[in-house]
């Protein structure tokens, strides 16, 4: 069994890597072009963390959840705030996913970032980002979790804005940070709500900041024996936590930051989309799942937001021409599936989908980076025909795409089907809506995935970076674009993709098989992750066949429109031009936020009001103080005549006044 120190090691080893890179390597090797040692330290640290994570997973499998009280950090208002550890089955799975995906991404990054002047800085940030996410999943205390939660936000900010000299990257980093902060504020309010109701927890012998105790309180709340959080109280807590998850997991209406986050280096996108940043939101809901279960309203909100986002984001992926943006919208959509699954109570399937999604989405992003390495562009209009020059990338991307589209027997098929199965078995109207939306999402996913795939790899090559520069006009870009060197990426980039492809192809039935598979018991994952006594539903073969048939149908449609040249696709797009424009403008939501909310609401009205308040009220008060002292001084100064007899009159009158006062009051 892994010790407490071992679990801390999973978190502290990447922190140590960050410290060594930032404090030793960077100052010493400042002028070195590519100090490989920085990359090796990060990879080594994450490899060690991965080993410890697997050990932790095995320990949890054998001995159940590992919960350590840790040390007291603060004693506030009669209760202790402890920095502890909570490693249950959810954490154990997350640890393996985070460290595993992160390790493959680091290996890939070494090749991708070679020659970049920020190579050392990149790996320092990557260590920080991974460490923060690990710290988030092992946190035993809600405050501790919140600190790590914000550190993940910081890491994403630093990495999205990694090429900070590009205005678009700097703006995207700021946008990501600010938009997620909106959700974080809801999370903070939920924490404060728990804190102010601590009396009720302490009465029950629970600590309102300990995650284990919060989970333990949930059944009491549901049973109605926990007055402080009864009724709407628990809904507020759940909604607050959900707000945090909406921000981090880029759910509607806070999804706007994720497509812009593409400005970061591509491996960063892979990490953000697969394991760290956006997974944190789903993890958060899962972590406080008992609280959500205690509130029907909160569950309904979670389910509807998730299902709506799943379709909403998928439609925006239909017309996007940027390969990374297609994948970004796809992530938002797939996260919608996970959130919706949690909302309908399908806890195990949601985590299962998170697990499989991590593999195929990381794979697809690394593939997009590989394609970019060859062509110099992300715009798919200037790609095409790469199948011939990049056979390995082609094959690996095909596995990822099939998995994302939910084709048997790839990983995505199994997890998506479990979610659909749960939604189908739902008894009331809400589940029917959720189910319909998720099925629509399946069709859209299949279409945009293969539209992207065909535009990138099939047809004729359309010129890469040179063509893009010509299309934008030479004035737009200062220096000439590098000539695309159409060739397969190096083995250092292909191997991590291969590892992820294995997961994307096989993780579905290996960890959660339908029947006993050698040593692996049937539905192992569902039973391991799911709450006590959860029953894994048998595969609904009719539904699975229907969903897959739908996928195949829409892949077929994509083949018709985009496989042979782009003629058919272009004609269709021209026919529905207004819709395409609306989709490309992302339903004008970004325009609404930036134009109306930020520029008009904040800059003009709020800023205008504050400016007015500052000038008319604050400045007026300051001016009044100066005016008053100056004029009061002048008035008092008039008394100083220099005439001794005038002073004597004052003294006499004063004495008289004292005498009169004395006589009256005594």
């Amino acid at each position, binding site marked *: 069994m892994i010790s407490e120190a071992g679990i801390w090691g999973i978190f502290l080893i990447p922190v140590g890597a960050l410290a060594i890179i930032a404090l030793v390597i960077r100052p010493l090797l400042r002028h070195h072009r590519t100090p490989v040692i920085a990359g090796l330290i990060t990879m080594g640290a994450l490899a060690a963390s991965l080993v410890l994570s697997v050990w932790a997973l095995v320990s949890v499998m054998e001995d159940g959840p590992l919960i350590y009280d840790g040390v007291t950090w603060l004693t506030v208002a009669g209760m202790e705030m402890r920095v502890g550890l909570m490693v249950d089955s959810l954490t154990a799975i997350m640890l393996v996913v985070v460290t595993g995906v992160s390790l493959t991404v680091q290996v890939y990054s070494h090749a991708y970032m070679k020659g970049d002047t920020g190579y050392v800085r990149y790996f320092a940030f990557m260590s920080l980002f991974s460490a923060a996410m690990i710290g988030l999943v092992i946190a035993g205390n809600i405050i501790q979790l919140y600190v790590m939660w914000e550190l993940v936000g910081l890491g994403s900010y630093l990495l999205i804005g990694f090429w900070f000299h590009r205005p678009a990257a700097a703006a995207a980093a700021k946008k990501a940070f600010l938009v997620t902060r909106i959700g974080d504020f809801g999370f903070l309010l939920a924490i404060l709500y728990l804190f102010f109701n601590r009396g009720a927890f302490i009465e029950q012998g629970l600590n309102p900041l300990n995650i284990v105790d919060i989970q333990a309180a949930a059944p009491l709340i549901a049973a109605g024996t926990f007055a402080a959080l009864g009724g709407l109280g628990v809904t507020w807590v759940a909604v607050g936590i959900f707000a945090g998850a909406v921000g981090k997991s880029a759910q509607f209406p806070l999804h706007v930051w994720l497509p812009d986050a593409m400005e970061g280096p591509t491996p960063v996108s892979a990490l953000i989309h697969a394991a760290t940043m956006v997974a944190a939101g789903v993890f958060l809901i899962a972590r406080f799942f008992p609280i959500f279960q205690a509130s029907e309203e909160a569950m309904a909100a979670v389910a509807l937001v998730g299902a709506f986002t799943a379709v909403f984001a998928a439609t925006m992926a239909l017309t996007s021409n940027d390969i990374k943006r297609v994948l970004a919208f796809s992530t938002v959509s797939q996260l919608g599936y996970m959130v919706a699954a949690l909302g309908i109570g399908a806890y195990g399937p949601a985590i299962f989908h998170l697990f499989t999604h991590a593999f195929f989405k990381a794979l697809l992003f690394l593939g997009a980076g590989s394609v970019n390495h060859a062509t110099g562009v992300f715009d798919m209009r200037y790609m095409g025909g790469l199948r011939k020059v990049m056979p390995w990338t082609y094959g690996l991307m095909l596995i990822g795409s099939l998995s994302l589209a939910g084709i048997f027997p790839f990983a995505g098929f199994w997890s998506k089907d479990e979610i659909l199965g749960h939604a189908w078995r739902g008894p009331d109207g809400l589940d029917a809506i959720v189910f319909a939306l998720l099925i629509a999402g399946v069709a859209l996913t299949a279409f945009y995935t293969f539209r992207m795939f065909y535009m990138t790899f099939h047809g004729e090559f359309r010129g890469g970076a040179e063509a893009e520069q010509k299309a934008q006009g030479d004035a737009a870009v200062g220096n000439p674009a590098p000539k695309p060197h159409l060739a397969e990426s190096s083995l250092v980039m292909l191997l991590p993709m291969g590892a992820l492809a294995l997961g994307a192809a096989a993780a579905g039935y290996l960890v959660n098989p339908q029947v006993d598979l050698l040593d692996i018991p049937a539905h192992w994952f569902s039973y391991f992750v799911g709450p006590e006594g959860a029953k894994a539903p048998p595969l609904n073969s009719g539904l699975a066949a229907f969903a897959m048939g739908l996928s195949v149908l829409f892949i077929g449609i994509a083949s018709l429109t985009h496989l042979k040249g782009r003629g058919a696709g272009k004609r269709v797009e021209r026919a529905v031009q207004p819709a395409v424009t609306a989709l490309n403008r992302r339903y004008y939501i970004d325009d609404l936020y930036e134009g109306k909310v930020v520029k008009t609401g904040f800059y003009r009205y709020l800023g205008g009001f504050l400016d007015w308040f500052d000038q008319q009220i604050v400045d007026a008060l300051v001016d009044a103080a100066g005016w008053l002292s100056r004029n009061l001084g002048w008035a008092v100064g008039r008394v100083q005549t220099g005439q001794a*007899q005038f002073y*004597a009159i004052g003294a006499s009158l004063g004495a008289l006044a004292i005498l009169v006062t004395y006589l009256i009051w005594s």
Partner: protein
Amino acid sequence: MDLEKFLILSAVLFCIGIYGVLARRNAITVFMSLELMFTAVTLAAVAMSRYVASRQVLANPGDASEAVLQTLLTGQVFALFIIVVAAAEIALGLGIVIAFYRSRETVDISQANLMSR
């Protein structure tokens, strides 16, 4: 004779003194008025000493404690102090007046206005 009459006389003298100090321009007259105020205070002190403390002792000779006996002559001692202080003050004050006269060729105290702002 009653205590009141002494006190009324003292008050009248004090008010005449105040009037002189506040209203007169001639520095010598101001000094004389000041002396009048001193005199009024001295008179009140002696009168109190004579009428208040000693009456108390005479009324209850048996209760005359050490503390009461000590107050018997306080007023009169005060009178002597005031006379001494007044004499010293006059010596100083007249010196100032003479110095003032030497620089301004006048003893009009409205001319002593260098302290105005």
